[in-house]
């Protein structure tokens, strides 16, 4: 791993503890791998000149033109950062799953949310954070101030997984309550009824939101690499099930693959960006996915 990529490793990030540091490390580590200055060219771009009117801010007066022509002209810039991002982080109990005691899906999602928030606020995008399980448990409204980051990070830091997933209901709720269209970033394991989830996502899409789904999955959830007789206990429903995983592995993988294919196809058809994230992998895939989405939006 390159030196900068170390800061994208979820295990490394989990050791940092401070969410602000986590976000900074993740984003700066990510951009350090891309190009030296990530903050140029995005927020303001020269577009045209117009005549000065009373009430315009003086800082936008082009003094060089005034010196040449004795007329006050205002520099006009193309506004790029007036997007609102809604980060929806699933905080249900199933997100607490972490195989082999490593990084849980919840932690991974939190790091991702923190990194995205940092990135967005750095670009002056309004960023909102919505934590939910059966219903919305925390709603931080969108703001573009840099200080807003602290509020988001604090919420992430003290967020604890609890309750069952009701993703569809939450999506409908958010769709109904958000007035301004923007980017909806859903970070979840999507362990709910697939049809309901798609309806919720379709609802958001219908309201002209750009939707990115970060599907966080644990490595063991994807592969079921356990051995021996195991009694599985569902984290949300507490249902118990005893089985030899080695005898189930093949069928399990097949069913999970079908499930993921289904989600990918459905989201693809709906114009929703879908990104499957393995919690054992670094965060950069998620950040790339977001930035490419953001670029398309411009």
């Amino acid at each position, binding site marked *: 791993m390159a030196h900068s990529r170390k800061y994208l490793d979820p295990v490394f990030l989990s050791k940092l503890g401070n969410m602000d540091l986590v976000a900074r490390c993740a984003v700066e580590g990510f951009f350090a791998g891309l190009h030296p200055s990530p903050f140029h060219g995005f927020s303001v771009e020269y577009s045209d000149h117009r005549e000065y009117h009373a009430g315009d801010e003086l800082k936008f007066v082009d003094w060089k033109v005034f010196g040449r022509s004795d007329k006050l002209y205002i520099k006009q810039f193309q506004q790029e950062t007036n997007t609102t991002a809604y980060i929806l982080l699933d905080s249900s109990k*199933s997100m607490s*799953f972490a195989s082999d005691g490593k990084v849980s899906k919840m932690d991974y999602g939190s790091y991702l949310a923190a990194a995205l928030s940092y990135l967005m606020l750095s670009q002056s995008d309004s960023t909102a954070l919505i934590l939910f399980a059966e219903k919305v448990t925390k709603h931080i409204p969108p703001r573009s101030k840099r200080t807003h980051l602290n509020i988001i990070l604090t919420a992430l830091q003290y967020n604890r997984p609890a309750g069952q997933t009701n993703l569809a209901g939450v999506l409908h709720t958010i769709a109904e309550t958000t007035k301004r269209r923007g980017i909806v970033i859903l970070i979840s*394991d999507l*362990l709910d009824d697939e049809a309901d989830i798609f309806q919720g996502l379709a609802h958001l899409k219908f309201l002209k939101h750009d939707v990115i789904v970060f599907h966080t999955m*644990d490595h063991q*959830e994807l592969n*079921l690499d*356990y051995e*021996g*007789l*195991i*009694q*599985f*206990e*569902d*984290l*949300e*429903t507490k*249902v118990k*099930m*005893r*089985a*030899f995983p*080695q*005898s*189930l592995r093949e*069928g*399990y993988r097949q*069913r*999970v693959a079908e*499930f993921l294919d289904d989600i990918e196809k459905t989201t693809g058809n709906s114009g929703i960006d879908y990104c499957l994230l393995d919690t054992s992998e670094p965060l950069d895939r998620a950040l790339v996915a977001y930035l490419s989405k953001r670029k398309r939006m411009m």
Partner: protein
Amino acid sequence: MSFTEWIFLLGGLAVVGPLIAHLLAKPRYRRLPFTMLRFLHSGQIESHSRRKLRDLLILLLRCAIIVLIAMLFARPLLHIRLKPSESRSVYYLGLDNSTSMAYSERSGSYFDKLKDSAVDYIRSAENNALFNIYAFASENWMQGLSKEQALAEVKGLETEPGNANVGDFLSGLNRISQAEHKNDEVSVLVLSDFTPNTFRQFVNVAEPAAVDKIDYEPIVSSQPVSNAAIADAHVVGVVEGKLTINAAVVNYGQVEQNRRLMARTEASQSDPIDVSLSGNQRKNYLLKIDIGAIGRQPSILPVELNLSDGDGLSADDTFYLAVFIPGHEDVNILITGDSEHRLFLLKTALDTLSRTNSYDTLRIKQVLVDDLSPSDLDWANVVVSSTITDHLGNMASEIESFIKAGGRFVCFVTEAIAPEAAKQLLQRDVLAALPGRCIRERTYIQSKPYNSKISGVDHIAERSLSNYRIDKILIKGCFECQQHPDARLIWEFQDGPGFIYLKHLDSGTSILVNTSVDDSLGSLTKSSASVALCRYLLGENHQIDEYCFTCDERISLPISDWSRADTGQKEFWVETCDGRNRRASVAESFLLVPEPAGIGWVKTIGKPTLYAGVNLPQGETDMTKPSASELAGIMDRVFKTGSERIVSEAEVLHDKKRRPLWKMFAWMIILLLLAEPSVANRLKR
């Protein structure tokens, strides 16, 4: 299917163990919180049922292994019924023609009854039946007989002296039936009087015979048995020309016996003695018979003991006893040595020996070795020298002549030996070994001679020396001896060197005793074994002896010096009890007669005349009737029929009718043991 050792089937109860373990066992598993249970569910149902199936299969496998092991130990046999057309009837007849079967009463003899029963049995058989007949006393099989041949053989059968041989009958029955009649219906008939001797043989049968049918009939009288017999006789001794014999007379029946007993030789007979015996009583009687004065030549006297007629069996009323009467001989022993005190103990031992000898007269004379003259040698039969001096070397030729003339030269050695004289004596073939370097080490003599079959020494004294613990006498040293090529080492020290060397020279004998350096001769002559040692060295003792054998023994008669010296024969013609002439060979010092062929006398034809008395084995004519229940029990054990019969290993391997299943069971156990872990692992997936 049946089981030979059904008791091992109880071992199958051990299946309770795995059953309980199965019922009590809880599966060991790991708890794991998980999220995607809905993707596990359909597979889980399959896995759960598989697990149950696996547990059940493994339980069944383990139970099967235990049950199969128990069945294996129980030695299962598969009974295969053969088609009637494939088998035929084979009859084995065991007929007792031993001496006791000659017992007769008013209604006829036992043997006549036996033949009648056998004939009836044969006649009742199918026409195509096959017969194998074994006569217990004759010890011969008549095999593969048709019905007519079997009848003829039975009618021609006679009693023979001797015991019934049951063991050969059973082993032959097993052998023949397995080799030739594996698929046939085997029936056995045993006809005998089941005297105690015969009955004991049935009791001692180790390996039972497997047959399809067994019949037996004790041929016994319904009346009390009247039979007395001379069971045994021994010589007590000869006193004043009269030979005294102790005879044991037994009433083997239940009827009181009043008979007369007497002994007879060719020349004379004893006074008859009245014998009175109640039922099953045994008494000993002393018979005295005049044999006249004992001459110089030994001889064997045949003595016949007779019991007057009066019972149902005459064959056991005569007893044949051959008595060896040693000849009278004067033996002159010359003791010589370098000092008198050295010879004192040796002379004392010889004096003692002379007093105990019944037949030979020992005369002892003592001279110093330097005073030894040829005339002394002329007088002596035996010369005993305590050492080898130059004077003895000078007289080597005279001593050689003395030995060649039949004399016996016994030489001890001490440190004072003259080497040159010893060499001279060796060159003259007088010494059996040449003493060399002196070994000053304490040693002991072996308890038994190195060569015990050699002639020229007294073998009774040899046993006495062992009894006197000659091996405990400490010898303070000895000499390294170079053995003469013609000499033989007959006794050794415990650490290797020779103790006594013996050499024959013509008809005489030379003996070298490798005694010691210091006072080992004294140690020997002071010990309790001294007299026996003297007897051993002086050669065979002449004692009264008896040659009495039973008809099932091989006869071996000792050929002593007196008989062989006359003839030098290696082979004799003998007349056996049946009056036929047979060759008998001489091995070592014994005449071996191949078989006595009955009871009576076995005697050599020509000179020397040797006799051996051949009699019935003791108890052969004991007519005690067997108990019916005991007999039934023994016959059930000896002949196994049906599914209960015990089949020996050898029989199992060859008997197609009762196929052994143990190999199949063993393979099944091995396969199950191999399959168990793979089944368990396979179903875990």
